């Protein structure tokens, strides 16, 4: 299945700028992050189809995954 991945700021530097990705059926957000070498410390905002998502969420065809690093306040 194909999902669209949107990466922001420094996450684009990890070898993949964002765009369509082919994943096996039943893939989770975590498996996508593993493939992109993105760890928990790199994730500030995680949204799938404009809704809050979790790492164990199972992705489906045409999902849009948005990942933004934690570059806010603290």
């Amino acid at each position, binding site marked *: 299945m194909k999902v669209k991945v949107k990466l922001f700021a420094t996450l684009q530097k990890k070898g993949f700028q964002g765009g369509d990705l082919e994943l096996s059926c039943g893939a989770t957000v975590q498996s996508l992050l593993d493939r992109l070498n993105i760890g928990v*410390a790199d994730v500030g905002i995680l949204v799938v189809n404009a809704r809050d998502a*979790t790492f164990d969420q199972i992705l489906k065809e045409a999902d849009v995954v948005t990942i*933004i690093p934690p*570059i806010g306040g603290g």
Partner: protein
Amino acid sequence: MPFGYNGKILHVNLTDSTWEIEEPNENWYRTYVGGSSLAAYYLLKYLKPGVDPLSDENVLVFACSVVTGAPLSGFSRYTVAAKSPLTGALGRTEAGGYFGPELKFSGFDAVVVRGRAPKPVYLYIKDGQVEIRDAAALWGQDNWVTLEKIIEETGEKRVRVASIGPAGEGMVPYACVQNDLEHFNGRTGMGAVMGSKNLKAIAARGLQKPQMADPEKIKEIRNWHNDRIKVHPPNMGLSKFGTTVLVKALNDTGILTTHNFKEGVFPGADKLSHEAYHNTIFDSASTCYACSVRCKRRVSLEDEKYPLDKRFGGPEYETLAGLGSLCDIDNLPAVARGNQLCNLLGLDTISTGAVIAFAFECFEHGILTEEDTNGYPLKWGDADAMIWLIQEIAHRRGIGEILSKGVKKAAEIIGKGAERYAFHIKGQELPLHDGRGKTGMGMGFALSPTGAEHVETPHDVAFQGEGVSKLHSVGIFDPVKPMETNAEKVRFFVNGQKVWQINNCYGICNFCSVPIHAMTFQMLVESIRAITGWDTSLHDMMKVSERGTVMARVFNNREGLTPKDDRVIRRWHEPMPNGPIKGAFIDPVEFQNAINLYYEMSGWDKAGKPTRGKLLELNLEALIDEG
């Protein structure tokens, strides 16, 4: 009967050692709610414009909210407010920990302190009883000794103490208030106001937990919230690393404040990173009342030069950058040691870091010399100079006497062009964020009534692309573009500010709450309804928030602040010299247009004064002729 709160405000007059209790009605509580807005009510009511912030005429408020102490993650925060000795404007600063809930359980929703004690005292509040106690044995002691002695004197192992250290006693205008050694009302010099009143501490102990309107619903929300915290990515990162991840994340993005706000990339960032932190000095995670996020860090290190004790917590992002990258210092144990000294002596680590970076840059340009520093060269990156200066500042010794005034006044005293390197907004030193990479946050720095402040509005970067979905509930649908300063950005800012000021008025932690973390807008409203029994709504809560912002603005207007004070620093108008956003700057004309548009959207006139109609809309008719 009230649910969630006591219905009692404690008023203490230190001049004549008297106290009385006020019992406002429900409409009053629904109007002002708590925290920053409740505090602003009393400052506007009792403070005459123009008074010296360090005189007995200043008014000091410790304010919980109607929901502080509810057993939900993040409902632990309280505000300390007064006229600021650092800015001459509204002083206000929030902290978590356990003091706020304990103050609430001791029988009062807020404490309003007026006058000045003839000799050092501390306030002891237990189960509705109030004592003004002699603090002669505590005066001159650091916060650790103060806490230990108050526990011993009261015989209450679980007493919670908000205290000041020697810096507060010496009225350093960026002295902080701290509770239980690891939680801080850091900003705007509220520790100095306590010192000016000879008030060493407020100690609270109580078992009077206010009854909740719907305890079963609260239990249900608590379980839902805590379960969500475990799987909600922003909270998972905080639980695992606290805010320390920001060092690397901001550096990689090119906005890690470095070299006195000049640069956005620090070559030593890896040495201050969350990885270095958790591989070397990290001891354990810590938390605030009833909170399952556990974002607080404790550090320990057996080291002759930089020993670290976990009782004093550990540096968070702001301190890692303030005492670290801002001063070009990459020595993590030294930064953590600097943090511990600030905590013991009672200094705000943000302002302290900015003051030290200012001193380093003045020394680089020959504005300060070894003649001024008793022979000690102040060199960029020198960790020992940083440690030395913290102690000199806290005790107001030597060059520390000048630097203890804050960068604005220190530059005026030093002269020789020092003001060129003194970065502040409304007199307050900047938190460790660079507006060239997030202009909405830059607007927050400019418009915060307390001077430069990073918690005025959520930072732009989180709402890029579909991230904006987190603001759909408040009507923001266009993705936020961090580097732009246009009408869309102002619309984001106006609404984002109202959201985050909800958290400041209701005393809720941004790291648990809307719009980024595990609490949702819907469940936040449900929480307030279940605690108070009020038929409230997000609309009602955003009005409370806006009321707080408008009251703060009126306070500052009548103190003589003008739109000229709503600005950012020179360096943000200059191109970023290096890194991923090299060349980026904030266009001064665009930025000024954005500030003017903010006034318009807010119902303020061109002079930045809320209009009569706006004041009437917000039930603030008493302020119509005030400013």
